[in-house]
């Protein structure tokens, strides 16, 4: 289990993380989302023990990830712009990772084959996507209990993205590991994540089970015979509202059946309920947060 306890991290005068609290259970794939500059990468670096937190701590399996070095053997951080030493190839990198992590040869060969990478070719001749695959190859081969993927799907073509998702499913099934993925591509996250957290203004503003949250936020379309006062919707937790004539489009947070029952009491001519996707969920939560 990963526990992030009141983590504060600032750069110069700017507080990027301002008291982040979050608990993620083992065996889940957690999607970390937020606008650009929200501090997703900073949070991942605090979790992986690269950055020292200004306040608070991060515990994985009840051990401090910054102070206790051994726990980092169970954590792998795949950043968005990997570092490769000059003139290195996959074979030489394998030596590096095998020096510090328990590298699983079977997993290594399987993932190498899946990605179709050449072990002997110099990495500086690789494309951006191939470089990312190289890091992901090692991320999976060292079989961490906590895998942190920063912008994991960036620069990958559709086939590789599909292969990566498949590899991650297999990995979590076999190892009961925890994966945290930050990405701007919410559609990709929606396919793979079971839980999520939105990082906003240095804090986790919303987090929880993705399916439950999606069920809890719905889009409603209503039409009335006569114009109605807008304050009739005050009783709902409205995240977004759009009016065109007497037709209202509303995004309301709350139990779907309960909301429908209350809306019907307003006597609309038409009442349609639509599900939201993860991207809409993020946008409406973000708008709600700003409001």
């Amino acid at each position, binding site marked *: 289990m990963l526990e992030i306890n009141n983590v504060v991290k600032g750069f110069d005068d700017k507080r990027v993380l301002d008291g982040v609290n979050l608990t993620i259970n083992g065996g889940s794939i957690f999607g970390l989302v937020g606008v650009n500059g929200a501090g997703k990468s900073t949070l991942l670096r605090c979790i992986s023990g*690269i950055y020292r937190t200004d306040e608070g701590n991060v515990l994985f399996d009840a051990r401090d990830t910054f102070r206790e070095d051994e726990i980092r053997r169970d954590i792998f951080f795949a950043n968005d712009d990997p*570092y490769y030493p000059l003139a290195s190839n996959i074979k030489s990198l394998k030596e*590096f990772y095998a020096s510090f992590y328990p590298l699983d040869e079977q997993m290594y060969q399987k993932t190498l084959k899946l990605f179709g990478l050449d072990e002997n070719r110099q990495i500086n001749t690789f494309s951006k996507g191939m470089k990312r695959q190289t890091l992901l190859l090692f991320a999976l081969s060292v079989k961490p209990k906590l895998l942190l993927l920063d912008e994991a799907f960036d620069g990958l073509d559709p086939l590789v993205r599909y292969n990566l998702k498949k590899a991650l499913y297999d990995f979590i099934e076999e190892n009961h590991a925890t994966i945290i993925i930050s990405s701007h591509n919410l559609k990709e996250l929606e396919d793979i994540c079971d839980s999520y957290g939105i990082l906003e203004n240095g804090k986790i503003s919303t987090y929880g089970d993705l399916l439950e949250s999606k069920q809890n936020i719905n889009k409603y379309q209503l039409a009335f015979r006569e114009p109605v006062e807008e304050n009739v919707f005050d009783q709902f937790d409205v995240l977004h509202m759009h009016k065109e004539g007497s037709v209202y489009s509303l995004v309301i947070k709350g139990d779907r059946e309960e909301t429908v029952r209350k809306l019907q009491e307003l006597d609309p001519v038409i009442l349609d309920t639509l599900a939201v996707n993860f991207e809409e969920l993020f946008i409406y939560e973000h708008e709600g947060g700003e409001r």
Partner: protein
Amino acid sequence: MFSKEYFTYLFKSKKYLLIFILLIAFLNTLGSDNDYVGLVIQGFLCTVMTYLIPCNVFSYVHDRKAVDTFFSIPVSRKAMLVTGVVFCALAAYVPFVVTFSFYAVAESIGIVNYVVFLLKILLVAFTLVVFNTTLYLIGNNIFDGVVMIGAYSMLPVVLLAAIEIFSDSYIAGGGFDTSFVAYLSPVFISTDLFFDLLEASIVDVNHVAALTAYLVVFSYLLYRSYVLRAVERAGTPSTKIYSYPLVIYLYVFLILFMISSSFNYRYVSLGDFVSDMFIVYLMLFVIYVAAYFVYKRKLYFSYKLPLVFVAAALLTLGFSNIARSSKGFGLSQMYDHNDKKGQYVLYSYFDNGIPEEIKEEFKKIEDVDAEDTYLYLNVSINENPTLPKKEMSDDSLALFEKYRKSGIDYFYKEYREGQNSNLNIYSSDGHRYYYAIKESVSYEDLLKFAKDPAIDVILVNNSGEYSLMPDGSIKLLTLYMDTVTYD
């Protein structure tokens, strides 16, 4: 505290660097006819390596991407640091130890001396690596790290130059004690200690103590700089006060100090001096602004820049003016030369004519023309360092002191006329003093010097060298070859 895994990785990943170091050591050994000279050259190469290897091994600290990789591996920062330092020290000095071991066997220096040598080389290796790594980590990126190593390593040299210029400009006789500067850099101390290394049995306690102090202090600074490092600074401009700001101000101040010290040489008014030196000041100001550009990585100009520069220039000029008017803060008078065993060399010329008494004595020596083109004398004691030290009489010491004081007066004169003598004193405690003196040494004083059996009074002209005897007679010592004719 030490990671075997990381050491193994370093050894494997830096194999080309290690081969390069060994190759240089091997080529040096092959190319050197003299074992001793070969060792000295190799020692110099090892010192250079203590700069280069840490820059390579610790470069990841300055790389934003590499930081993610290296600081997330399951090795503690302490272990990463200790292992890195040990690797650098071994990589820099193992070739030297191997070469020295062959030398030690050939020269049969004995096991005790060999162990002493190993301990001394360990101290040098670790001190230099720790010192240079600390300087390298002052910066936040590779370029700044290299600049910091260069800037801080050269600082004692610039400081020494500034003190020497000030001393020569304002303190009659110079001789300001600059020996402390040698202790401002472990590289200087190591160089001194290095020559002791070759005499393995010698242990210079001062050098060993100073290096040990450097090792302790810089180990602590390196610990703070690396283990407590905010790694998110990697690849960003170096803004810590002891990086560019301190380096720029120290250098600008020292150079301004050197410029203002030259004020004394010129004997002009302060206004004329500033006017004459305006271009120099302007050039320094441009360099100062350029240094700020390197620091900020952008064109930067603030009213503080010229303000600080002008304030520093005025401060140094004011200091120089006080030094000039206070006759070097009275420092020249502070040195009391009651050193009877020091080396005193008083050269004197006779631009205003050779003393009649000496002319008469020369006439008594056949084939020697007293009116020869020049004549000078050398009154000296302990000039030859290979001979046992002699002690001069109180009278002689008083005579030397009289000429020294005359030199001090002459130094602080507003307008100097041509000098006729100069006095060099190398005191027993290793200081050198130099005085230009207006007058020649009088015949009476020459006779007094000649009466001191410890002192040689030598007269030199075109023909040869002569000794002035206590009774005033002249004795031929050496006749120059080109004046001798052979039948």
